[in-house]
């Protein structure tokens, strides 16, 4: 209970003591004539209350009966806590405040909730900058750089346009676009159904499932060595296959060395 501020705890303690003293003074009286004294004590409160009269009467009767029982027997709260009969005898003089709080108050302090324990009142400050000009400037410059690169590259390097398509004349070798060449390389090792459909299908499926497979909540590289290693090996595997198929495969899709036999690669 370290969360309760000291001054509030003290105030609550004092209030409790006062209430106990008052109850102790009243106790004998209550025991003698329960119904009557109960009605007398609560009479002023009934006047300014919005609670219907018949309910007030009922609660008064119940409280009085309870108080009578408690003063007759042992103190309720301490017996409940399992303390010995000696303690119970002491407490019998001080039943818990029933009808009203100290000095006739109808409310009392239940608990003190520290700010932030239930609701995040003040969000942790995040270091932020305005998108304009900080981010938009970066984006504009990078877009411009890529546009310039594409334009200049296009001025000096022409896209290939070979002879008109001829279904009766198969070029040697025939290669897929570069991003499928890894798969074409797999064709030399597996049945086409495995290399062309099953492996890429499973690959895409695993890629989609990646966030649901990787349950590690950290995004720090040192915490996820396995995931990074696996992904890197995977990427390198495809890169190597693609490079082999692009540059090291010649006529008849046989293995060649590009520096000896030339390049058989079109983008």
């Amino acid at each position, binding site marked *: 209970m370290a969360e309760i501020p000291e001054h509030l705890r003290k105030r609550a303690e004092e209030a409790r003591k006062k209430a106990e003293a008052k109850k102790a003074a009243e106790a004998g009286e209550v025991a003698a004539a329960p119904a009557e004294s109960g009605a007398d004590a609560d009479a002023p409160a009934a006047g300014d209350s919005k609670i219907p009269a018949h309910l007030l009467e009922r609660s008064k009767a119940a409280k009085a009966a309870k108080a009578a029982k408690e003063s007759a027997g042992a103190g309720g709260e301490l017996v409940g806590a399992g303390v010995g009969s000696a303690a119970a005898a002491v407490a019998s003089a001080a039943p818990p405040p029933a009808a009203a709080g100290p000095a006739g108050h109808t409310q009392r302090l239940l608990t003190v909730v520290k700010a932030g324990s239930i609701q995040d009142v003040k969000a942790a400050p995040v*270091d*932020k900058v*305005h998108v304009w000009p900080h981010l938009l400037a970066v*984006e504009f410059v990078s877009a411009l750089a*890529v546009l310039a690169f594409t334009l200049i590259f296009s001025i000096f390097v022409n896209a290939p346009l070979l*002879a008109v398509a001829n279904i009766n004349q198969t070029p040697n070798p025939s290669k897929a*676009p570069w991003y499928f060449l890894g798969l074409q390389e797999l*064709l030399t090792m597996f049945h086409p159904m495995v290399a062309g459909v099953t492996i890429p299908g499973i690959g895409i499926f695993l890629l989609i499932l*990646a966030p649901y497979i990787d349950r590690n*909540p950290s995004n720090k590289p040192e915490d996820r060595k396995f995931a990074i290693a696996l992904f890197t090996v995977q990427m390198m595997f495809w890169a190597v296959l693609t490079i082999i198929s692009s540059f090291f495969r010649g006529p008849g899709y046989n293995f060649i060395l590009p520096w000896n036999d030339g390049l058989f690669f079109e983008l």
Partner: protein
Amino acid sequence: MAKTMEPGNKLGQKMSELTEKVQGSQAWSSIFRPGSVFRKGYTDSPRNRSYVVMNSVLYHLHPVKVKRHAVKVSYTLCLGGLSFFLFILLTVTGIFLMFFYRPTAAQAWDDMYALQASVTFGLLVRNMHRWAAHLMVLAVFLHMARVFYHGAYKPPREFNWVIGVILLTLTLLLSFTGYLLPWDQLALWAVTVGTNMMGFTPVFGNQVRFVLLGGSEIGTDTLLRWYVLHVLFVPFVTVIFLAIHFWRVRKDGGISGPL
């Protein structure tokens, strides 16, 4: 000195009066919303910096503010944004190319040749379209690698990763459908290799191949089919997924945190 400055001053005064009048007109302020640098009384204030983003259809995909680490070029290398920029560049150059191209086996190659030989900037725009397409495939791959290495697919961003993988396959589809259109030997046989591979799909292999080719062999029907896929269908689907992708970036709390 003062005398020589006088005519210039007068002209400057006239100019600033004119500017004042134009910027104060109803037409002007109806065009340029608050936050526009052209609007009267624009100053570099935090309020106007926010308006620039909020009041621009082009920029409002962004939040008003981003975490400071997000603007460090070394964090994302702008790969996602550049993929999108290349998509736009490809749309613009692609629309230009569509004016000069007919997707039939008899005309496609001749149109390509005429485009390169006799259309102003035809060769240049075709080159740009091709190289930007290869660059986009590369950028999307690298974007995926960046996201993986940053662990940026972790909660709450799992589903946006899924959309990203779908966008990757759509990018490959866009590139592959475009590959056939020049109708030269390279296009025909690259596509033959690709579609033959897909023909080995278990159970439905032949049907898949038939649907892809619009027949049992590559021909003019294939060309029309892939043309429509390339210029309309796949871009249409891609734009929808792009919209969801960008929207989710915002909804999932902006760009992922620093490592």
